[in-house]
């Protein structure tokens, strides 16, 4: 893997931009080139939000990525929009708490993460983005779990009472992905 792009997509408030930022910070901590590109434009409250994160061992050229290796989709509209764009051999991480369909694509690996439910068990449904991030890390190995954990501690440590919830969410998401056995992803 010299360059890996992942899109995080959901509706506003689900924390997709934050999840992407944490991935970018993690890549940076591992000494890689990173870019975080948000969707921006006129949007209504509760509308769609997405960002693409590029983690690379070489200089990042175009920040516009049409076909990412991975999409982490948080809601149904994002599933419909982004699944077709995933590069063959890529990875799809689905928030199965809100999305009740699975892909019929056979050229990508799919991992179903009941992120809302896991987050609730961890202490707050708000941590669903961290569950998704954990699952992404577990399934893709783009950054190490150790790095992601350190970044969550560093960037989200200010809200002390939330930190254990976020760390638990990250770990549960990670474990689920690793246990699902789909840890090998072609870059």
């Amino acid at each position, binding site marked *: 893997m010299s360059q890996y792009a992942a899109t995080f997509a959901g509706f506003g408030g689900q924390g997709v931009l934050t999840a992407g*930022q944490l991935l*970018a910070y993690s890549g*940076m901590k591992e000494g890689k*080139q*990173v*870019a*975080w*590109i*948000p969707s*921006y*434009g*006129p949007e209504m409250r509760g509308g769609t939000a997405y960002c693409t994160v590029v983690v690379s061992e070489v*200089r*990042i*050229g*175009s*920040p*516009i990525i*049409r076909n990412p290796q991975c999409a982490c989709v948080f809601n149904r509209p994002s599933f419909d929009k982004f699944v077709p764009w995933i590069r063959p051999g890529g990875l799809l991480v689905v928030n199965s708490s809100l999305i009740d369909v699975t892909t019929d694509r056979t050229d990508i690996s799919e991992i179903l993460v009941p992120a809302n439910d896991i987050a609730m068990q961890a202490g707050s449904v708000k941590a669903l983005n961290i569950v998704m991030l954990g699952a992404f890390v577990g399934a893709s190995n783009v950054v190490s779990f150790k790095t992601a954990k350190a970044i969550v501690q560093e960037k989200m440590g200010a809200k002390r009472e939330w930190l254990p919830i976020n760390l638990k969410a990250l770990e549960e998401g990670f474990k689920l992905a690793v246990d699902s056995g789909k840890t090998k992803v072609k870059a």
Partner: protein
Amino acid sequence: MKGNEAIAEAALRAGANNYFCYPITPQTEVAEYLARRMPEVGGVFLQGESELAVANMLFGAASTGKRCFTTSSSPGISLMQEAISYMAGAQLPCVIVNIMRGGPGLGGILPAQSDYYQAVKGGGHGDYRLPVLAPSSIQEAVDLTMLAFHIADKYRNPAMVVGDGMIGQMMEAVEFPEKYIEPPLPPKDWAATGAKGRDPHIIKSLFLDPVALEKNSQVLHEKYEQMKRDEVRFENYSVSPENEALIVAYGTMARICQTAIDELGSEGISAGLLRPITLFPFPEKQIYDEASKKNIKAVLVVEMSMAQMFEDVERAVVGKKPVHFFGRTGGIVPTPEEVMSAVRRSLGAESGAKRPRKKS
């Protein structure tokens, strides 16, 4: 760091403690960031009632010799043009950052490069130019913002940094210099700092005597000629004697072209990129030299606007080679694939494709 925030921090570290603004997408994070940071460094953060007010506040602050700046986006920059022309006429240094969106008119809010003419060719009235710096990464946005203050002071002229919305919104890793060191500058012995015990310094752009006005314009002209000699900046990517095509692009567009060049390479098409970092002064000699090389069959200008920089490239190439254009606008950012087929078209390698513009 997000591009807008990085620009804000870079300006502070270059000693610019006076910031005037009026919010507009996609650069509002600069103001948001500075509203928090300025009080920490004891600087001035002032949100004006309009862009007109902001630009004239800039005029006032610049007159005192203090480093000052504003940030805005295309329609906001249009509203500032009167004061920018006045500042150029009165020889006042300041920095104006334009995070460009699609135009004309109110346009849209997505990334574009459609203010090239406005930035490079004047924008306001009169015989003046602005040095214009165009970053293509967040690190470069930091470096060039800092440099813009230096150039503004060195030439006593407003300087502009132009980024497209992508530069403003994207996050990348950045490093700030531990301590900001710049080459020595002449003292600001023209500034209005209080005239007690000396003759007043008069700062104005009104010269009713035509001889005096012509002289002022000649002084300005000489500065712009000096910029052309000393301030041209550019970067080459994959430029080699094997190149069949030379791409000229700046800002975010240049990065997309880099990816296109890499992919074309694997198809056996050799293309190089010359990326102007200064849009004025323009690297016309360098473009001429590259375009003149034996193997080059075509020059392709790629913009997120409709053939604006194209004219400067055409002028630089002076008919030596065919100059083609490819661009998208309105907030649509061309993909590497689109650039690749534009390169193939300009080399005549894609059948049935019409050449967008040609001069030979």
